[in-house]
């Protein structure tokens, strides 16, 4: 099976990545399996300065998934460059740095700091975290999204992926603005905003109130957004949301994703990412494909037509 996956300028040995925030910076997963088995890794969001994250409770269980409101707790750019990136360089996998900021300068500073560092394959701009104040600012308005991408674009020639929010009226409009401003690829999706109520304590379960939904419950939402992005835009998409099997990954490829990232599933099965690589190879064969590329948009005729033009 030809497992190579191309996402614009990015070439992955297979189309299975780990999603940001469910992999840390790789240290814990590396205790469990060889990270070189993965197509790529998207690290936990990195901000210029260390961020504390939100107070507890940060997590709740919901039907078919979970809520999280971590609030992007992270040790900051310097720690990432000095401690985490050197660790990840030991592995033969593509490292995508997930970047967060409270404002444009915050994003730009991290991108500047990451640019030119050996071992960084690309950047993912997280403009879609629902769990920090202003976290969705740049993902809900095409002009602001485009402006931010444009600013970042000036700072780096690295492949630039923009992570979209499902909490918008029209994700395609935002995606188009990112593309126009110079993004190389889109990743879809970040979490949907949700809430759980603790009846006994008479308050939301999550400390800050609302939080992001992830896990299998998210898959239908994400599949539809990936499908729409692929059929309406000419920019490669990385599919994210509720992927827990090779079959799920194949559904995303068929919907129009060029690669996928595995998130919440690693909480249920820490070995999920390498398992999904193996399962996907079998699923592709079972459906008569000889290469990942062949499955692309197999269920999305408009996307295929668009590409063949």
């Amino acid at each position: 099976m030809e497992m190579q996956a191309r996402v614009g300028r990015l070439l992955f040995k297979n189309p299975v990545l780990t999603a940001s925030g469910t992999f840390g910076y790789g240290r814990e997963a590396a205790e469990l399996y060889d990270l070189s088995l993965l197509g790529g890794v998207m690290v936990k969001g990195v901000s210029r300065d260390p961020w504390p994250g939100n107070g507890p409770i940060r997590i709740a269980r919901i039907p078919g998934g979970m809520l999280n409101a971590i609030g992007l707790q992270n040790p900051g750019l310097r720690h990432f460059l000095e401690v985490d990136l050197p660790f990840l360089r030991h592995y033969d996998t593509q490292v995508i740095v997930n970047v967060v900021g409270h404002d444009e300068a915050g994003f730009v500073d991290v991108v500047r700091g990451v640019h030119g560092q050996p071992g960084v394959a690309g950047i993912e701009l997280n403009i879609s975290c629902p769990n920090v104040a202003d976290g969705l600012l740049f993902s809900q308005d095409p002009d602001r999204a485009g402006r931010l991408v444009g600013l970042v674009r000036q700072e780096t020639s690295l492949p630039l992926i923009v992570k979209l929010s499902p909490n918008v009226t029209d994700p395609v409009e935002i995606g188009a603005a990112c593309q126009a401003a110079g993004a190389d690829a889109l990743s879809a999706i970040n979490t949907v905003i949700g809430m759980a109520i603790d009846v006994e304590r008479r308050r939301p379960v999550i400390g800050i109130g609302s939080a992001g939904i992830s896990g299998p419950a998210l898959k239908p939402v994400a599949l539809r957004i990936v499908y729409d992005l692929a059929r309406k835009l000419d920019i490669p998409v990385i599919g994210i949301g509720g992927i827990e099997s090779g079959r799920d990954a194949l559904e995303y490829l068929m919907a129009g994703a060029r690669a996928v990232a595995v998130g919440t599933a690693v909480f249920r099965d820490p070995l999920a990412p390498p398992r999904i690589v193996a399962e996907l190879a079998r699923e592709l064969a079972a459906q008569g494909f000889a290469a990942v590329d062949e499955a692309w948009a197999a269920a999305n005729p408009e996307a295929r037509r668009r590409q063949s033009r």
Partner: protein
Amino acid sequence: MRPREIRVVERLQPAPDCVELVCEFPEDEGPQSGQFYMLSVGDGRDTYLPRPFSFYRVFSPRRLSFLFRVVGPGTRFLAGLRPRDRLQAMGPLGRGFPLPDGPERAVLVAGGVGVPPLWSLARSLLGLGCEVTALLGARTRSAVLGRPELEALGIQVLTATDDGSMGHRGPVTELLGGIEADGLYACGPEGMLRAVRDIAAARPLPRTYLALEAAMACGYGICLGCAVERAQPDPALGAYGTYARVCREGPVFRWDEVRI
């Protein structure tokens, strides 16, 4: 720490709504008292995430048990397991109780389903020559867990119940009043842990350790879901150091390490 399949070999029911599952591991295990495992709890609508459980008794290097009260879908699933059923276990996880360098007067305090991490701790402390006393608290007589199992180790066990149906009437921490201790090891509801912390501060009793709980998604340090506020953040970490992970830096903390 690693995920693997374990097998139920015996199912005990020490109290009406409590189950002890004795499980066979594929290889020898040597967890520290206070460490825990993430157990898979089925494929149901509300059981996507595994659930954290301390190991309880150790019958042999490959045979550990888990003790829990049925409180929701996860524990309901586990309570439905029978000998020969299999489940996934990820562990051992976290940092357990630190043992003293030599013999001491050790007091264990358990509230509710707090006894699991303390049983093996009692055994280890006895092995070090300690004088071990266990204080068990619960709502009512039938909810007192672990008494015969701890007594079987040959230690003194005192009980307290809210309704006075067994032992002292009142919070289990009131039993601490008349007891001398060099080391204090506690596991139970948040209110009880706070009372233990206050006693540790007042006496003072520096060797006081608390086993915390927190909502967990991964149990192995990658989700950052299990935050607890640190009392003295490491200045080198900046704002990042505001919170510690209960699953990785804990679940056992010294009383003055965290704000609860």
